[in-house]
């Protein structure tokens, strides 16, 4: 209820013109009328805090990730990566699998690819702070591996802020 009251009050008081402001330049003309910030209005998509998700591995993906860990442990990164790609074909939208693949690339000292895989995981992890934090940790490690310590610290900070959310 707390999140619903202010907007209603504001609406009642201010009608529809909450924010003035110029619309973004849009080619030749801008539309007439007053602007409003793009916060969802009533009847629009739910505007509660983002639904929290918590990614987990399915038994199939989990078995493959474990198998990949064994390959990695034996130093066989090619096999580990091939096994994780099998897991990705089963769960392409699961950030945890992408993070695992990024970890293998990092172990192979392919920092650039580890970074890219971390960012891929991050886009999939929206709404899951734990998975987002793991993605940032991977990105931080991949930056550090390439000597970009300042950026690594920033990434680490982002991970930290998610963890405490």
């Amino acid at each position, binding site marked *: 209820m707390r*999140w*619903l009251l*202010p*907007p*209603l009050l*504001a*609406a*009642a008081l201010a*009608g*529809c013109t*909450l*924010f003035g402001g110029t*619309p*973004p*330049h*849009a*080619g*030749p*003309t*801008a*539309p*007439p*009328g007053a*602007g409003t*910030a*793009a*916060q*969802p*209005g*009533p*009847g*629009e*998509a*739910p*505007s509660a805090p*983002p*639904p929290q998700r918590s990614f987990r591995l*399915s*038994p*199939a993906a989990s*078995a493959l990730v474990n198998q990949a860990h064994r390959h990695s442990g034996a130093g066989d990164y*090619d096999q580990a*990566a*091939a096994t994780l*790609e*099998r897991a*990705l074909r*089963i769960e*392409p*939208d699961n950030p945890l699998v992408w993070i695992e693949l990024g970890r293998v690339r990092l172990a192979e000292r392919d920092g650039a690819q580890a970074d*890219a*895989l971390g*960012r*891929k995981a*991050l*886009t*999939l*992890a*929206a*709404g899951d702070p734990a998975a987002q934090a793991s993605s940032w940790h991977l990105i931080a490690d991949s930056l550090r591996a390439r000597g970009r310590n300042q950026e690594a610290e920033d990434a680490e900070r982002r991970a930290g802020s998610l963890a405490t959310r």
Partner: protein
Amino acid sequence: MLVLVVLGYVLYLDHMVVKQFEGRRWTLPAQVYAAPLELYGGLALKLPEIEHELQRLHYRRAERADHPGTYRLAGEHFEVALRAARFADEARPPSLLVINAGENGILNLRDAHGAEVPVLRLEPLLIGSIFPIHGEDRIIVTPAEVPPLLPAALKAVEDRKFDTHHGVDPLAMLRAAWVNARAGQIEQGGSTLTQQLVRSYFLNSRQTLSRKLREAVMAIALDAHFAKADLMNAYINEIFLGQDGDRAIHGFGLASQFYFGKPLEELELSEVALLVAIVRGPSYYDPRRHPDRALLRRNLVLKEMADQGIVKGRDAAAAAQRPLGVSARFAGAYYPAYLDFVRRTLRRDYQEGDLTQAGLRIYTSLDPRAQDEAERSLEHELDRLDRLGNHPKAALEGAVVVTAPQSGEVTAIVGGREAGYDGFDRALDARRSMGSLVKPFIYLTALESGRYNAATVVQDAPIDLKLANGQHWQPVNFTRQVYGAVPVVRALAESLNLATVGVGLDVGLPKVAATLQRFGLPQPPEQVPALLLGSLSVTPLEAAQLFNGLANGGFHNPLRAVRAVISSEGKPLKAFTLKVTQVATPEAMYQLDRMLVTVMDRGTGRPARALLPPQLIVAGKSGTSSDYRDSWFAGFSGSHLVVVWVGYDDNAPTGFTGSAGALPVWAHIMAGLGTNSWNAAMPESLAEVHIEYPTGLRAVPGCAQDIVAVVVPGNASLAVRPGCGFPESPAPAHGVPAKPANTFLNRAQQWLQELAH
């Protein structure tokens, strides 16, 4: 002197025969495999579909699953006697698998001891091989892989004295000569298996006396130097057994796959007899084209086998009652366009000789289900479109590329409407104007500039540009109308040319060109205004590369068909691994993808709705080049990207827009794939809002007639439709497509509306 010359010649032939025979035994075309099907609990594969997949691999239903290659169906579970299988990363011995399936798919998998198996792949389907220019294709079999019936039958029918003669059988030759002389034509062969082998190895098929003599000398030489068992094995691997376009089917290993789609060792009596029957004349006794002849000769072979005591008369009689059992399509799995892509990928790393001779095993990402769906839909829809088309002489052509966007794996390629025909591969080689397929990249560039969003109003107004060459460029809309002020989301959904050119010129051609290149366009495009209407020519595969980045949340991965290459000894040689590069911000990408969803709901993609499952969320864009020469549709779900091109080979106008030509093909494929909805997570800095579709003005649902949900940056400032009240709301939304708001919000909205009245 003459004796010396003859002796010298004989010694020369002897030397040559030995040398070539030893060398030639090891030339093996690379074998190419489809992606293995991964089975696991939760996979939405129902009983009949599981059975279909087993049958695709030519597993046989049996009373008991006790031989590799058989399965038993009992209620809702399968017992499958798995064959030994070689994957890129492991070899697996034969084993028993129990699949428990329910209404919605696989419940779980268990092994022979009842232990749960979390995930297991079926063996990969052999989809072809990379054979040399002269077209000889074969699968080598070892003596252990040959059913004992086969050599016995060959001897019985072709060469009864094989075990005892010295390479030639003079009596048989004389008898044949006598029969032929009386008939005045060649009616009997009289050649031993060794002679046939020599002919196939070294000689052309002209029937002259000198060639006959040379053949005899060489056969005697071979017989003297090599064991009978070696010669039999060489014969089984060498002999010509059929023709498939440019591809010559050699050896019983490949013939077994070619005619029956299963390994030689699993052939039954009637099938062995058919292959032996074909030896005498692969074209004359072609079981697909001349089934009656083939059946008669097969039964003759069976009778001969019974007469010589190789099989019981009863068994032969039973086998003679069986149908030919030849698979309808050539081996059910011959995909020339896909193989073409595989070959081109590998030519970068391998010499031709390595591919055609070294016995490599090549593992690809081809998904036979997607491939079949794409072939079927293209053929079916082109037949329909041809009846509506406007080219009296030519038939419409088409091409399809299907990928798994997240991995960048190409799962299907169709190079033309006759998919099994090894000809011009349009998916890889037809370079055609991309038309409006370019528009998403223009709007993505605009979104990334930060100056545009889905609700931004742009002008669809006449354009007159003076070009560098002094000419004037005056593009028009497809409908030849001018639409005035429209929001970006509508300009893209309805593919408005004038509005898009305006946006493209505003953000700049170099930026648009750079976006296309980031997404994988191989060459820098010419930076002319016509680029904004898709004057750029691309192949369907290149279009798939570009759209794959859109389907993969703004990550580029080079499209790949080959997963791994393994040596003939099973050693991994090369892996083509997953590589991603971020080429767009998650925010811009999500906003664009949501607009591409609107294309399907409101715009040029809308006709697909009737063909797709109602709940399936997809995104896409049509493309039509000038004068309707090319009809494109490129679009994606959560798990598949499909690109379709339709047009004439001679570049004549088709009369079809992308929505009329390529879209129905696309929709049929999408509907048949069993795909998942596009369901990307919305970045937290974005918000979903509603605008009036014609004007772009913000309006709550119910407040105006034509409202559409769009996604814009959370801090974007939107103009509001007069009379539509808007409160401020906290944190931006998360999640995808507009769901009915929760009851709280609905009540709030009602309350507001009541206030307004």
